[in-house]
């Protein structure tokens, strides 16, 4: 049933469109109805699990710019099924949660519009088979996430952070597009399925290095790898449901998804593997280091997300069977527990008015369901059995112990990362609920969140537990097909049962170390908080964000500087720059077309024309050297009428008449403004006059050379002959010029009259400013 692919997108898009209306009538309760859309899509995808698990793929294709080699093609295989289930399944709960969290918000309708649009874009992204289509959805997620992160747009901070996310991911996407086009050039296809079958061709191509770097530019910015990591914690400026969605299952996973998607064709080289493994490790370490010092529960979660993205990238880089399995399992586990934790933190924030983990304590009696959900999620995140997170962590260690030599560094990194991550998980998900309660320190008297706000967390947290205990269904229909899609191989049966993992071996030992270390970090959390401000302030000037700010400020400085220089507001300078540019490019063009290589046929000019031209030249000199506007105007008029005469003499009456009329009108219009112009003598100094004289002479000389060369070229008369021949029979007109204008090329003419109309509006606007100024002066 390939139509379910487009149907799922349609359902979510429709929900997005009707959201504002629905909210107007139902308020926050509309969320329950809107959530039906993602859940419906979820069920549709779930129904395909059997087919996909059997090794088939669904393809839906419609023509879309087929002349350019692209098409609107969607494809559902193991990897996209997994992502689609996460996007829609978690998305549904987020919608419900948002209905509770943002209850009564005046812009709730707009929020759901953005959220569901983002969901649709994300779904399109994971389903795309054509990489150009994928790019389009990729950009749509950037734009919609910009709207979501900056939703509290009345806060300057929020706008700045949203813009930061947009700029970082947007610039990366530009690189990625270039990479995609290179892929298309090398393989001759934009279809992912076909590209992934041509890995050898890609890797043998001289463009391979460029492709990897450019594509990773997109993936690393989107998935916030070092040194682009800083936008992710900043994106917490968005409302909590947004963070819960963007940072668990969607936005930041897009980069991981892209790398996994292209893994079959791009992996296998040292460049790909080490780049991913090293950047992933660095991201993990940096995230864990910074995470230790955070006090805001949401920030803690943001840094753990960053860490997880690092782990996933690293595992892709390692690329072994176990590593890919670990990656997929970790990805599922993370989506479940991270969405839960974000929502729980949001609920705590909602009910207590703070997210400061140094203040939050002992909430379990007041918020029992949230406490249960948060606790379960934190335990899964810590990687304790029998949670799904445990399987992921075990697989990481299994992949790690298979490494040898220097590569064992990655195992060490994974160990440190998991250990700190467990500490942070407990800090954000368990800490607030235990210990001695001190509710007086809180801004609000806490109580349990409403149903809409705990249903999602509890369902997701419990599923993390259930699929940990009975992983069979998930491994068979989600993990194995996804692993096969990432590895580019046939689907194999995986055995991830818990009892098979709990064996006394090295990985289990490492797990034990992780748990002990994690508790140690958790218990010593206060020590890190004590120095938190000092450490974070000290390292900030050396961080990537400071670099971003410098680049940002530099860009604005440059833009201002060149605007000041090029766009002075003086007509004189504008004309100068326009002519300068023309001279340079025209000179270059003439030079590259053989320079001053032409012959002049003196016999074709008769005496009358020579006299006319001499008169015009004298008039031109007078126009340039004239001391009063009237002299200059008359001299220019002579030149203009001379041109009209030349047109008439060589048989172009239409042009001649137009030229005459335009000359007349120019004089009239000039008379209106002449009173307002400064005296000619004061306009420019000696230096400027000499400079302009040189420029004007150069321009005139170049135009002359250009014309002489043009005359020398033997033009193909076919087109003009054909137009002339067609004029009467086809267009019933004997005046070819007019026929071309109003019939053959009417669309061009239409464009021109639109330009004329716009120019008139522009002139009127400028003049109106002048009139206003004049009036202001006289008052």
């Amino acid at each position: 049933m390939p139509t379910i692919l487009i149907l799922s997108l349609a359902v979510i898009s429709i929900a997005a469109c009707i959201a504002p209306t629905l909210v107007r009538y139902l308020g926050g309760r509309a969320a329950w109805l809107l959530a039906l859309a993602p859940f419906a899509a979820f069920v549709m995808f779930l129904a395909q699990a059997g087919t996909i698990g059997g090794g088939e793929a669904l393809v839906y294709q419609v023509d879309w710019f087929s002349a350019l080699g692209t098409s609107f093609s969607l494809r559902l295989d193991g990897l996209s099924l997994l992502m689609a289930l996460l996007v829609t399944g978690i998305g549904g709960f987020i919608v419900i949660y948002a209905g509770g969290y943002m209850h009564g918000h005046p812009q709730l309708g707009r929020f759901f519009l953005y959220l569901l649009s983002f969901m649709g874009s994300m779904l399109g992204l994971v389903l795309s088979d054509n990489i150009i289509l994928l790019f389009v959805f990729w950009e749509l997620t950037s734009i919609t996430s910009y709207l979501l992160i900056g939703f509290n747009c009345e806060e300057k901070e929020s706008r700045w952070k949203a813009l930061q996310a947009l700029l970082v991911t947007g610039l990366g996407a530009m690189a990625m597009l270039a990479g995609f086009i290179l892929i298309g050039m090398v393989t001759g296809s934009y279809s992912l399925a076909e590209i992934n079958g041509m890995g050898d061709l890609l890797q043998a191509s001289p463009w391979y290095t460029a492709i990897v770097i450019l594509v990773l530019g997109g993936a690393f910015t989107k998935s916030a790898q070092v040194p682009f990591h800083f936008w992710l914690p900043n994106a917490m400026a968005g409302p909590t449901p947004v963070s819960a969605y963007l940072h668990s299952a969607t936005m930041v996973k897009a980069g991981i998804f892209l790398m996994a998607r292209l893994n079959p064709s791009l992996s296998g080289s040292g460049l790909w593997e080490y780049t991913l493994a090293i950047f992933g490790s660095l991201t993990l370490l940096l995230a864990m280091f910074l995470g230790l010092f955070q006090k805001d529960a949401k920030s803690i979660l943001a840094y753990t997300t960053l860490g997880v993205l690092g782990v996933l990238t690293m595992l892709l880089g390692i690329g072994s069977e176990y590593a890919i399995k670990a990656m997929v399992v970790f990805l599922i586990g993370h989506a479940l527990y991270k969405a839960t934790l974000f929502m729980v933190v949001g609920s705590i924030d909602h009910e207590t008015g703070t997210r400061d983990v140094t203040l939050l304590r002992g909430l379990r009696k007041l918020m029992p369901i949230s406490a249960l959900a948060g606790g379960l999620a934190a335990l899964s995140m810590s990687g304790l059995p029998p949670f799904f997170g445990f399987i992921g962590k075990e697989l990481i260690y299994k992949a790690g112990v298979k490494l040898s030599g220097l590569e064992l560094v990655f195992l060490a990194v994974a160990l440190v990362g998991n250990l700190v991550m467990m500490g942070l998980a407990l800090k954000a998900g368990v800490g607030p609920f235990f210990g001695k309660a001190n509710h007086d320190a809180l801004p609000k008297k806490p109580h349990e969140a409403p149903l809409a706000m705990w249903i999602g967390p509890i369902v997701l947290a419990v599923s993390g537990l259930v699929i940990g205990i009975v992983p069979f269904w998930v491994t068979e229909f989600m993990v194995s097909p996804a692993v096969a899609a990432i590895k580019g191989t046939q689907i194999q049966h995986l055995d991830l049962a818990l009892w098979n993992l709990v064996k006394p071996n090295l990985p289990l030992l490492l797990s034990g170390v992780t748990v002990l270390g994690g508790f140690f970090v958790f218990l010593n959390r206060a020590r890190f908080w004590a120095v938190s401000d000092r450490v974070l302030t000290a390292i900030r000037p050396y961080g990537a964000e400071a670099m971003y700010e410098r680049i940002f400020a530099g860009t604005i400085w440059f833009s201002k500087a060149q605007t000041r220089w090029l766009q002075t507001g003086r007509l004189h300078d504008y004309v100068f720059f326009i002519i300068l540019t023309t001279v340079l490019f025209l000179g270059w063009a003439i030079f590259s077309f053989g320079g001053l290589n032409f012959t002049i046929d003196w016999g074709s000019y008769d005496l009358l024309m020579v006299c006319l031209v001499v008169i015009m030249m004298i008039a031109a000199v007078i126009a340039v050297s004239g001391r009063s506007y009237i002299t200059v105007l008359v001299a220019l008029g002579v030149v203009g009428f001379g041109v009209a005469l030349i047109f008439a003499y060589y048989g172009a009456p239409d042009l001649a008449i137009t030229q005459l009329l335009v000359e007349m009108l120019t004089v009239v219009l000039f008379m209106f403004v002449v009173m307002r112009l400064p005296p000619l003598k004061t306009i420019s100094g000696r230096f400027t006059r000499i400079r302009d004289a040189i420029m004007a002479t150069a321009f005139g000389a170049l135009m002359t050379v250009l014309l002489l060369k043009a005359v020398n070229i033997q033009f193909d008369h076919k087109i003009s002959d054909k137009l002339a021949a067609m004029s009467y029979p086809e267009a019933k007109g004997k005046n070819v010029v007019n026929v071309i204008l109003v019939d053959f090329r009417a669309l061009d003419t239409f464009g021109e009259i639109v330009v004329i109309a716009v120019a008139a509006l522009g002139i009127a606007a400028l003049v109106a400013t002048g009139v206003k100024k004049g009036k202001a002066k006289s008052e």
Partner: protein
Amino acid sequence: MKYFILIQASRLLFPALLVLSLIVLYRGHNLPGGGFIGGLLAATAFILVGLSDSMERAKALLRIEPVKLMALGLVVAIISGLPGMLRGAPFMTGEWLPGFSLPLLGKVHLGTPLVFDVGVYMVVIGFVLHTTFSLAQLAYTQTEDDE
């Protein structure tokens, strides 16, 4: 101070110029002329009145604001492109009525290109007069300013 002879002359010339502009517009398809030239001619007629009498008088004679005239001209030009589409041809394909004879004009061919040219004619008049009227306003504010 008003120039009596000029005003009288412009009163005679104004209709003559307008008729001329229409003739130029109409004959453009076969002989030199067309919407652009016709539009410029028509605009000079109004400017003549504006200079000799007053811009207010010229505006009154035009009856419609130049901006609206431009907009209307664009609409006319777009509409001229539609009939061809009715029979599946691309936008702006010329369509012609069967020719017929009229006194004075001889054999007449009417078609969408002529309609398009009328659109051009209107936009050009609108452009020139919109610019002229605003510049004139500028000039007169300046004069008041000086006084």
